[in-house]
């Protein structure tokens, strides 16, 4: 409901288009200065080609300028956390694939870390390196697809997304030959990985890594210096560093705002402390910086993949003493987190000593990053709101869970 008393507030000028249950608080945003025209209230989504899934933005427009924005979630709420409480520890592993369905390998890893902390398991060194290889491949996959979708939102329909999906298929072929599934890999286990990668598979990864640099050069030549893209994205959706930190934003979005916070450096989980890489940081915090940070991260991922492939030791990939089925960790709690491609993905588990977790909680990066959406969009046009949303990089399976 917008306003009960039409005379009391400037929002009386709002013409209602959709059901009146938008629930804006009339005082949250000051009325636009000098605006003489009517405000228009529209609903973008849940069926909208550029909301990246079933997400809905209720926006109030003054002309074409966004003066208020309210995100509406829950169209894909699949009761993930509740199901986790009724499922065994191992049984939740395939569900984590379906959280952020572009990055199942990193979701698996974060969950495995949480359970390993809870049950006090150790991971063989070879498995740690394999995990790094898979996580960096996932990062390449996610950032490439994100760049494609972002350009689709900007209006270059088709070409960048076609290029991105061509590369995605190459990475998915690797995932499939290793884990048996393209998207829902279900590969990590408590205390290691499910299967040992063969030398042929590692050679295929090395081949992909070698050709990924030239692909990025091609991709960047097409996009990075493109005049239209610079005009559309530079200075749009600026996120100040203070707001980003206060809102708990993580991942490339935080780094684009100039805060060099990367859990691979901060926590130093896995074998990342032994590998040499830089953390790209942006200057302006706008959409263009978020794109550039991701491209630079992909370059670092290529270097990380080369180092991990070169240093990969022999040995087992799974601790044979680690119990998978019927795991009953002693009562306690644990929080496992990693730097996923979208930000800090974490799992908080509370065990009461039984076969199922007492509480199973997911800390989804894209949901937390989405909380600053209104601050980013105010004052921009509707077309800019679409690319700002695209640059946040949300996946609704993770936002709604």
């Amino acid at each position: 409901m917008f306003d009960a008393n039409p005379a009391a507030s400037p929002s009386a000028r709002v013409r209602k288009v959709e059901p009146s249950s938008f629930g804006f608080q009339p005082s949250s945003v000051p009325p636009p200065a000098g605006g003489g025209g009517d405000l228009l209230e529209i609903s973008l989504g849940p069926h909208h080609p550029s909301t990246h899934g079933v997400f809905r933005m209720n926006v109030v427009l003054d002309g074409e300028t966004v003066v208020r924005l309210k995100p509406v979630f829950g169209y894909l709420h699949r009761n993930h956390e509740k199901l986790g409480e009724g499922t065994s520890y191992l049984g939740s592993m395939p569900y984590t694939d379906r959280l952020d369905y572009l990055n199942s390998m990193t979701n698996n890893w974060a969950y495995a870390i949480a359970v390993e902390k809870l049950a006090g398991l150790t991971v063989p060194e070879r498995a740690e390196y394999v995990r790094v290889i898979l996580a960096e491949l996932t990062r390449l996959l996610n950032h490439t697809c994100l760049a494609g979708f972002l350009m689709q939102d900007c209006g270059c329909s088709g070409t960048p997304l076609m290029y991105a999906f061509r590369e995605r298929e190459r990475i998915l072929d690797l995932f499939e030959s290793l884990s048996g599934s393209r998207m829902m890999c279900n590969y990590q286990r408590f205390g290691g990985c499910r299967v040992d990668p063969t030398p042929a598979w590692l050679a295929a990864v090395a081949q992909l890594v070698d050709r990924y640099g030239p692909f990025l050069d091609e991709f960047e030549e097409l996009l990075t210096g493109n005049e239209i893209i610079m005009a559309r994205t530079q200075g749009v959706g600026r996120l100040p560093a203070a707001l980003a930190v206060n809102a708990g934003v993580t991942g490339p979005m935080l780094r684009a705002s100039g805060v060099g916070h990367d859990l691979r450096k901060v926590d130093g989980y896995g074998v990342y402390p032994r590998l040499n890489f830089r953390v790209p940081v942006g200057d302006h915090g706008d959409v263009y910086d978020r794109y550039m940070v991701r491209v630079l991260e992909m370059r670092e991922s290529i270097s990380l993949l080369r180092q991990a492939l070169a240093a990969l030791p022999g040995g087992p990939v799974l601790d044979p003493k680690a119990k998978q089925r019927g795991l009953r960790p002693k009562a306690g709690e644990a929080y496992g987190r990693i730097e996923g491609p979208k930000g800090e993905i974490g799992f908080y588990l509370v065990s009461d000593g039984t076969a199922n977790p007492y509480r199973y909680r997911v800390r989804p990066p894209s949901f937390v990053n989405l909380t600053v959406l209104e601050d980013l969009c105010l004052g921009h046009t509707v077309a800019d709101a679409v690319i700002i949303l695209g640059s946040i990089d949300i996946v609704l399976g993770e936002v709604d869970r």
Partner: protein
Amino acid sequence: MNETQPALTSQERDELRRQGVLLTSLEELYNWGRSHSVWPLNFGLACCAIEMIAASMAKFDIARFGSEVFRPSPRQADLLIVSGTVTKKMAPHVVRLWNQMPEPKYCIAMGACAISGGPFKQGYNVLKGIDRFIPVDIYIPGCPPRPEALLHGLVQLQEKIRGQALTGPEAPRHLRSDDACDCPVPELGAHDIEPSHAPGVWSSPSLVRPDKG
């Protein structure tokens, strides 16, 4: 011409085709044309939507089958691909989109969630199959189905379209005057989604005991 007995057998028609004479009926020509230009609705729900996008990209190239024109508006679409989990909050929107599509229209339930609720079936917020509310033509199992599976489903749908009669009792629903095309839009009631299913579309399976025949 008698409808039940064609004037030419299929062998005779093949023979004529080899000699450069093409004989067809209006029905065949019409079905052949529309089966190769099925325009899907640009509508993604969950994980399966990513595989649907992959099917429309370069490697799998859904354009080979005439379905590359993804329309954002239901008014221009022929095919609803329910690609992912339908929650109770989303179900009214899916049914409304289906009602807004013009006839003739078809529906593909893509993936385990759209068919039955899939891995999330035990939860409190997931619909146990979209076929409780809208009539589904093709079911594609998988979690998610590969893009090839989606293409296979599309080819099956094309075969179904080519086999449709335009007159008589087998005519599709939009050509029968006695059939209502709109499905009731469910609403979130006090306890659960209401109605729990569309009566003309789905009925709960009945238990048949073998000893009672």
